[in-house]
């Protein structure tokens, strides 16, 4: 009994969350994007449970293309999360907490955590490409 309890205590903290079981990092892009306006956007595909997301971080002081997120800190994003089974947009937009572990010129890595309106919790890691707009970008 004691051995089971001790083993459980040792193992539990290292068990992955449900979303992380066998999951590959979500893919996508991050960087400046034409939205309504001109903002810093994280697009994720292949999230846990097959969800995808289009997440906006406001507050880059009009410089989403040169802004770098702080590393190893939670950054708040809001936007569209399309969750399975029907890939419907979750409304109202949930807040997604994103932590960047790296943010380089070509790619970025980190983790995301979001609770949808129905209580479903999605979390996992991502490995995305930096979104580079072509020389001239026209937003309308």
């Amino acid at each position: 009994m004691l051995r089971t309890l001790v083993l459980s205590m040792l193992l539990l903290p290292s068990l992955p969350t449900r979303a992380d079981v066998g999951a590959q990092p979500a893919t996508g892009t991050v960087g400046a994007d034409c939205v309504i306006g001109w903002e810093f956007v994280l697009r994720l595909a292949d999230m846990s449970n097959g969800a995808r997301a289009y997440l906006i971080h406001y507050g880059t002081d009009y410089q989403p293309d040169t802004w770098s997120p702080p590393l190893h800190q939670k950054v708040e994003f809001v936007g569209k999360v399309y969750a399975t089974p029907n890939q419907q947009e979750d409304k109202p937009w949930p807040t997604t907490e994103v932590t960047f572990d790296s943010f380089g010129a070509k790619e970025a890595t980190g983790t995301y955590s979001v609770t949808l309106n129905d209580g479903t919790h999605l979390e996992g890691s991502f490995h995305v490409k930096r979104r580079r707009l072509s020389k001239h970008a026209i937003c309308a």
Partner: protein
Amino acid sequence: MAAEVDVVVDISRLEDVPVWGHMLAAPKFIGFIPSDDCSKPKPDAQGNQLPPKVLPLTGTPLANRLSSSKDKLLLSNLMNSPACSAYFNSDPARAQYYPNSQLQVAVGRQVQYDGADSVISMYDAGMWEDALGATRAKALLSDEYISCHMRNPSNMMLSDINRVIVAESQVQLPATDSYYNRYGKNYIDPSTILHEALHNLTRLDDDDLRKLLGIKLGGNDTSDIGAKMETVGCAPKP
């Protein structure tokens, strides 16, 4: 859509405060701190403070470009063409926006403002989606000004001058306002007017508009929406 941005940076108007990029491994000089306060209400010719929403002055290049583009779009009557009708009616999601001349009505109802002079926040301008919610929209967007999105390129970071926000549109009701950028006026075409009218009409952002119009997501910028309207025969080419 045009291929070149005719932005000329007036270096003399830039403050000489260097800024160093920190997203790359090695520090790299990327420009100067913007010297204007684009969030400060602007004066008119008499020195009176302009209202938050400023109509383009008659006879200015922006007003002329808007007028000619809108006239060309409406006079072409392409929004009523069989090709445009067939395109919109080929998909139930699109078809809801076509009957009763909704495209023409949206273009006709659109109130066009001079974005550079309109010191109005994204929140007050109604440029946020319902799903964001009014409370969060107010918290996030009350300090983000259209006039700063569309400010004189001379006052932009050098790293920013290759992008132009040509227009932004209201998606909150009454969803009739559109703000156009005088510094991007050469990109305003008939299809741009229709693109913005589609935002007003559908109250959708660019990505959702792409889905509605059957355009592949992830484009470099949003010129693909206007191009689609031209391709399917709803808007004349420039």
